């Protein structure tokens, strides 16, 4: 699988294999006894849980203690306060997913200014530079995810259709890339399709915004929503109003997997690999603390999930069996 996007500063992607740990690296790390802090946008999503599982396991193998895992609740103010609190704990490294752009840039710059290695996930605030303000960014190939979603939704869209895109209002590298790529793919491959864009600021606004978009454009034949939690909220709201539109989204959460298996609204999911991303992020931390050079941008390819491959995709991504409801819907279990 190739990486189709470029990094936040135009970097070419390095594959996660570039940060593989050798036995010597693990041994050296074990003697150091490093301390690592983690600040995520949320701890409640399946994505965040899997990311942490991958990350914490590697730190365990390397004798590094995860001293705090912070839920920033998608709030820039909370993230700024939590980063300052983490800095005061003097960890050797901090892994952070910046929840905004400009509002959290200075707080992230303070991390590296304090001599703490900073590894970013999914988003690099504008103005922060790799090697100077942060060590590396580890993310999915979000541009690729947008393309996968568009290619997956396209067969469900009749000629001349109108499509709604529900983006994220925050200036966020990952969701920006998905939105741009989704529309670009349609412009290149389905010039008959007309796109309408709206953006939600908070997840709990998504359902209402989705409903409004559909009522403003009654001919919409499909929707792309930039990740699964708001996508399912929109789907549920539309279902309650008696509407069902084919959906494409990003992230194979459990509920999304059940929906796709049951022939619900979700027709295509461009899935990230959060467990692998967690592993790559932790390995990048260890290598950088060992003063080994690490790439500025490490990107993991996305996986195209449809009803036909949802079981194996779930296993690949979550490293666990697919939910019973998925298996039952596909006739693989009773």
């Amino acid at each position, binding site marked *: 699988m190739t990486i189709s996007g470029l990094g936040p500063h135009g970097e070419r992607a390095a594959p996660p294999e570039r940060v593989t740990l050798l036995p010597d690296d693990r041994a050296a790390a074990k003697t150091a006894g490093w301390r690592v802090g983690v600040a995520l946008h949320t701890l409640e999503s399946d994505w965040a849980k899997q990311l942490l599982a991958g990350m914490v396991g590697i730190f365990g193998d390397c004798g590094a203690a995860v001293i705090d895992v912070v839920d920033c609740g998608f709030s820039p103010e909370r993230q700024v306060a939590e980063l300052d609190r983490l800095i005061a704990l003097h960890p050797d490294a901090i892994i952070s997913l910046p929840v905004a752009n400009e509002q959290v840039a200075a707080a992230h710059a303070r991390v590296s200014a304090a001599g703490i290695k900073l590894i970013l996930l999914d988003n690099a605030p*504008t103005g922060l530079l790799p*090697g100077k303000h942060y060590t590396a960014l580890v993310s999915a190939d979000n*541009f690729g995810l947008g393309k996968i979603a568009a290619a997956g939704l396209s067969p469900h869209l009749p000629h001349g259709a109108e499509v709604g895109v529900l983006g994220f209002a925050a200036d966020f590298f990952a969701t920006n890339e998905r939105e741009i790529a989704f529309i670009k793919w349609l412009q290149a491959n389905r010039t008959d399709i*007309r*796109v309408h864009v709206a953006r939600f600021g908070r997840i709990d606004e998504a359902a209402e915004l989705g409903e409004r978009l559909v009522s403003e454009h009654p001919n919409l034949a499909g929707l792309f929503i930039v990740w699964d939690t708001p996508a399912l909220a929109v789907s549920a709201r539309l279902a309650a109003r008696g509407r069902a539109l084919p959906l494409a989204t990003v992230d194979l959460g459990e509920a999304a997997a059940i929906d796709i298996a049951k022939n619900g609204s979700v027709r295509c999911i461009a899935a990230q690999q959060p467990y692998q991303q967690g592993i790559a992020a932790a390995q990048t931390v260890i290598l950088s603390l060992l003063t080994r050079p690490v790439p500025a941008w490490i990107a993991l390819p996305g996986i195209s999930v449809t009803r036909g491959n949802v079981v194996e995709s779930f296993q690949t991504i979550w490293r666990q069996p697919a939910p019973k409801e998925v298996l039952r819907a596909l006739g693989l279990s009773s």
Partner: protein
Amino acid sequence: MPPSAPAQAESLRPRGKGRPRTAETAAPSLVELLNLVRSETATTRQELERHSDLGRAVVADRLTMLGDLGLVDESELGTATGGRAPRLVRFAARKAAILVATLDQTAIGVGVADLSGNLLTEHHEAADLAAPPEQLTERLSALFRWSLDRHTAAQGVWGLSLSVPGAVQSGTDGAFLTTTPPIMPAWEGFPLVESLTRGFGVPVWIRSSVETMTMGELHAGAGLGQRTMLFIKVGRRIGAGIVCDGQLFRGAQGAAGLIGSLPVTSGGQTGSLDSLAGSEMIQREGMAAATDGRSAVLADILRRGGEISAIEVSQAAQVGDAASISILATSGHLIGQVVATLANALNPDLIVLSGSIVQTNDILLAAVREAVYGASHPLVTRDLRIIRSQMGSSAGLVGAARVASEALFAPAFLKEWVMQGSPLGHPAFSDYIGRLADIPKAAPAAPPPPSRQGKEPLA
């Protein structure tokens, strides 16, 4: 209070009877004060009086005018040094935005910057520069509109600045471009400047990528505060950006620093630096090493169905592949020999190497250092630092923004628009826009497909 020299010059202009109106005489002092604030040379009224030689009343009056025009902001208080805390005078950099873009052989980047040239957002994506110019311009415009939709809904745009792969001839235009300079052979005859000015209603500037990256490095990267710097971009072409006395030196035709065409000799072969040390050589030699058994790492990439570009060779060198190390060392030594000549001529404080080949391995940088140190006068290298850029492709966007902001606020240009509060009201620009509207489009693009109509963000 003696009037400043520009104010005297202004007062000599032919005018009607009676005292000149403030609006007629204020422009030179407004320009001077605004640029003192913009460059942060002065941040309080007292400092402005000191640096400008203008009296307190004039400074107060002009600051009120600049405040009314929305160009300065005095809402913040500074630190008291005995007595009341002074009111800080800040440049209103968010008054409007500058659109910026970089075009290179394999990617385009777009961004939105504030009036000080600080990047507010950026996006990069793969693109083929060999594609028809209409198609690339349309993609650029779509990305600009998307960026504007997200970031500057409440603001206006005051300028658009582009970075392109080749040298851009200077001296053919005034303060902004009114015709498209010859930039790339395949783009000849395509009205890029005219299309973008029409599309966005703002003045347009174009510089070479080496020039914009040098500006970016100078103002936001390792070159911050440096007076003398050499910036070397290594890619398919190899070029140098020259900074003397804190300013980018463009040369008589805008062609300063085209070192890639200099002849060098390597392994008994003589050719240009571009051909014997650029990324095409690295790719070609890497491919040969993969197929003739010299490089197991590169051969493995091929076996897995991968492609070998200069980046793969560069990454292979970084993990210790002997053949790749040798290829990059050859390139680095050749570049270093040429850079040493420049360094001996200019005696820089700093040499910054840039480009993805330089960024993905340490070998090329080490080889350049070795060659420069070996071939330079000891005094030239005594305090010389040779480093790698940390800005990636952002340097080009940041630098393009600086090109536009420096042009917008150049005293001669600013003087003509400051009273209007926007460069879009500059008489020469209004005149140009008017002329463009009268001229039918030279090369009308094909009608946009349905998905690109309307006011959709990427449409």
